């Protein structure tokens, strides 16, 4: 019972509603009772209040009458007596104050002045008049005229507070009692409500249980049976037994009708199944035939296409040969032109080589000239070297001469010094001579300086000449080297000239040979052109054959397409029959064992 049925749901819902209604009714009743109770207690309290107010008023009246009576008695007593003593007044006033309600009293004379007063504080006190601190105005007052000469008037002050307090306390007590009873009644009512709620729960639960039990027994079990049958039908199982023995008449009728329907269906489906099987077998055989036909036609087509390809290849090859032959012809033309070009080139080479040989012989002459010039240069350089050495010798000699001049200058100097000395010793007579001597000395010094200069310059010249000498030596050696190399060059040039002459003769021969080649290549090119024309004709014939074979192949492929279409139609038929079988198969017509046997037959 995991899935709660419809019946249980209805029952639970109705039970819930009933429970809710009961609880709400209960709450309403209790509330009404509570309101009633409250109203009753309130009216009772009001009545009490009124009663006590009345009681207080009555009491007040009684006290006033009592006091009036007492004072009247006193007045009567006083009027009846002739002589009144002061003690009598005191006694009387004390008597008056004995009354619990009386707080103060005073006796007044003719002028209205009090001559004796008494009041209650803690005990009875007396004086000529009332003290000021006593609050008279809040008290009730009784005024009486006596009419005797001694006492004109009596004033009496009293209060009814004590009585009122007593009455109020009584009233409070009664009201408290009423409230207490009310709370008690509240408690009782709450208990009643709880009891009512529990009782209603219990009743509702009992009702629900009985309903559920009866529903399951009478309605749910038969419906369950019918549901199981429906489940089997949903699985397309028509081989189901329908039990028609139910407790209720309506359900019996329903199951009978269902059984008849299932029987009818069972028969129809069995017929359809057999027919579908037969159809499928025939479609299978047709498919096989169509496939065979297709395969045969494909075979034929492939063979035809092979033939076509082969013919195409042959045609292509012949074409290629024709092309090649043409290319050869073209190439031959190229070769012929190239050989022409080669012939021209060789011709120009031969000419160039002749020119080269001529120029080489020219170079050889030049080199010989150069060698002669170099020899001359060597001779000149040697001559110049000799000249320089002569120059050096001359410079050395000049050095010797300058040394000699210097020595002479020294001598002259000493001579002049000595002359000066002599002139000095001669005194004033030698003055003139001394001037001459000093001039000579100066001259000697100058000549000495000049000689020194010359010597220095000559040394420079000597250095320069020696450098020039070495340079000339270097130059002559270089020229010698040049001479040697130019000699070797001239030798090489003569050899080269010989070689070039040989080359020139060879080039001439090559020229002639090239001319011969040219002629023969022209012949060859002509014959190749003829061959190219012949091959082109053969290629055209091959092409014709290939196109015809292609026509045959195309017709075969058309045949194949038709057979393929037939095959496809058969396949579609087969597919349709299969679909029908699939549709019908799920219906179980008989018991499972029989079904299995049928499948095995298929």
């Amino acid at each position, binding site marked *: 019972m995991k899935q709660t049925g419809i019946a249980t749901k209805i029952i639970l819902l109705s039970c819930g509603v009933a429970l809710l209604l009961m609880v709400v009714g209960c709450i309403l009743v209790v509330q009404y009772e509570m309101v009633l109770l409250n109203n009753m207690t309130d009216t009772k309290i009001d009545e009490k209040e009124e009663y006590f107010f009345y009681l207080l008023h009555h009491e007040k009246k009684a006290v006033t009458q009592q006091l009036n009576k007492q004072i009247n008695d006193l007045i009567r007593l006083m009027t009846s007596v002739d002589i009144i003593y002061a003690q009598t007044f005191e006694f009387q006033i004390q008597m008056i104050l004995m009354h619990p309600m009386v707080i103060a009293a005073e006796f007044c004379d003719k002028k209205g002045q009090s001559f004796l007063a008494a009041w209650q504080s803690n005990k009875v006190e007396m004086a000529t008049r009332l003290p000021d601190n006593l609050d008279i105005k809040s008290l009730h007052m009784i005024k009486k005229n006596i009419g005797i000469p001694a006492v004109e008037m009596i004033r009496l002050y009293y209060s009814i507070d004590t009585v009122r307090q007593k009455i109020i306390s009584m009233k409070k007590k009664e009201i408290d009692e009423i409230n207490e009873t009310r709370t008690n009644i509240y408690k009782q009512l709450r208990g009643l409500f709880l009891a009512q709620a529990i009782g209603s729960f219990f009743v509702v639960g009992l009702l629900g249980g009985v309903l559920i039990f009866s529903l399951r027994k009478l309605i749910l079990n038969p419906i369950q049976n019918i549901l199981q049958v429906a489940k089997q039908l949903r699985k397309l199982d028509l081989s189901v037994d329908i039990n028609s023995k139910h407790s209720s008449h309506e359900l019996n009728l329903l199951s009978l009708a269902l059984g008849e329907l299932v029987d009818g269906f069972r028969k129809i489906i069995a017929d359809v199944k057999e027919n579908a099987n037969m159809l499928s077998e025939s479609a299978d055989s047709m498919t096989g035939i169509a496939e065979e036909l297709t395969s045969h036609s494909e075979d034929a087509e492939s063979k035809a296409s092979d033939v076509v390809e082969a013919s195409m290849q042959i045609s292509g090859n012949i074409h290629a040969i024709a092309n090649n032959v043409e290319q050869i012809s073209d190439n031959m033309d190229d070769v012929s032109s190239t050989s022409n070009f080669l012939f021209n080139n060789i011709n120009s080479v031969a000419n160039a080589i002749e020119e080269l040989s001529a120029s080489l012989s020219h170079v050889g002459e030049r080199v010989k000239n150069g060698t002669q010039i170099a020899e001359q240069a060597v001779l000149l350089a040697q001559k110049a070297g000799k000249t320089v050495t002569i120059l050096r010798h001359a410079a050395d000699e000049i050095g010797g001469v300058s040394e000699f001049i210097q020595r002479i200058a020294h001598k002259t100097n*000493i001579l002049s010094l000595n002359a000066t000395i002599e002139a*000095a010793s001669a005194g004033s007579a030698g003055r003139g001579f001394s001037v001459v001597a000093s001039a000579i000395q100066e001259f000697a010094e100058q000549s000495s300086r000049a000689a020194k200069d010359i010597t220095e310059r000559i040394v420079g010249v000597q250095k320069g000449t020696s450098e020039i000498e070495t340079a000339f030596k270097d130059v002559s050696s270089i020229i010698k080297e040049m001479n040697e190399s130019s000699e070797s060059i001239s030798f090489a040039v003569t050899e080269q000239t010989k070689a070039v002459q040989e080359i020139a003769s060879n080039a001439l021969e090559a020229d002639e040979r090239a001319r011969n080649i040219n002629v023969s290549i022209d012949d060859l090119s002509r014959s190749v052109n003829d061959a190219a024309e012949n091959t082109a004709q053969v290629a055209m014939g091959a092409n014709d054959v290939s196109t015809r074979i292609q026509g045959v192949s195309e017709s075969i492929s058309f045949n194949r397409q038709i057979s393929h279409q037939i095959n496809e139609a058969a396949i579609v038929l087969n597919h349709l029959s299969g679909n029908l079988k699939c549709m019908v198969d799920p219906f179980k017509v008989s018991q499972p064992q029989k079904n299995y046997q049928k499948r095995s037959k298929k």
Partner: protein
Amino acid sequence: MNKLKNITSEQKKLPESKRQFCSFQMAGHCFGVDILDVKEIIDEVVLTTIHHAPSEMLGFVNIRGHVHLVLDLRLLLNFSSKPIDESSRVLLFHPNVGESFGVMVDQIGHMIEVEESLIEYRLTDENLSGIARDFRKSELEKGVCKLKDRLLIILDASKFLSAVELKR
């Protein structure tokens, strides 16, 4: 004797109170002697050495048949000795200065003529003791002459021979 010689040399003073000196150089210093004391300047000296003589005496020299003694003025002036070279010269003095002798100098200079006023003589102190006076005699310097660019130390030629004796 010396005083007499000094008088004779001063008598021959120039009337314009000018004096002439023969200048020469020794070890970079400039010296001079009175031109009247000099007899002759000689180059190309051929010296004949005296073995047993003191080192200040360089040797004898033969000038036109007369033999003269040559002193080394470097040693007399307390310089170090130096070998003879091209510029070396010999100054021969008058016989009134000393008996036929001369001195070897490094290099001969010009004849210089100066005013008397430019010469400062060394003062001789008479109060010195005998030994001090003898020492003063050996002093070869006579005074200093102020030239334009340098100072010329004037030597007394008559004291050269006695200086050789004193050194000994």
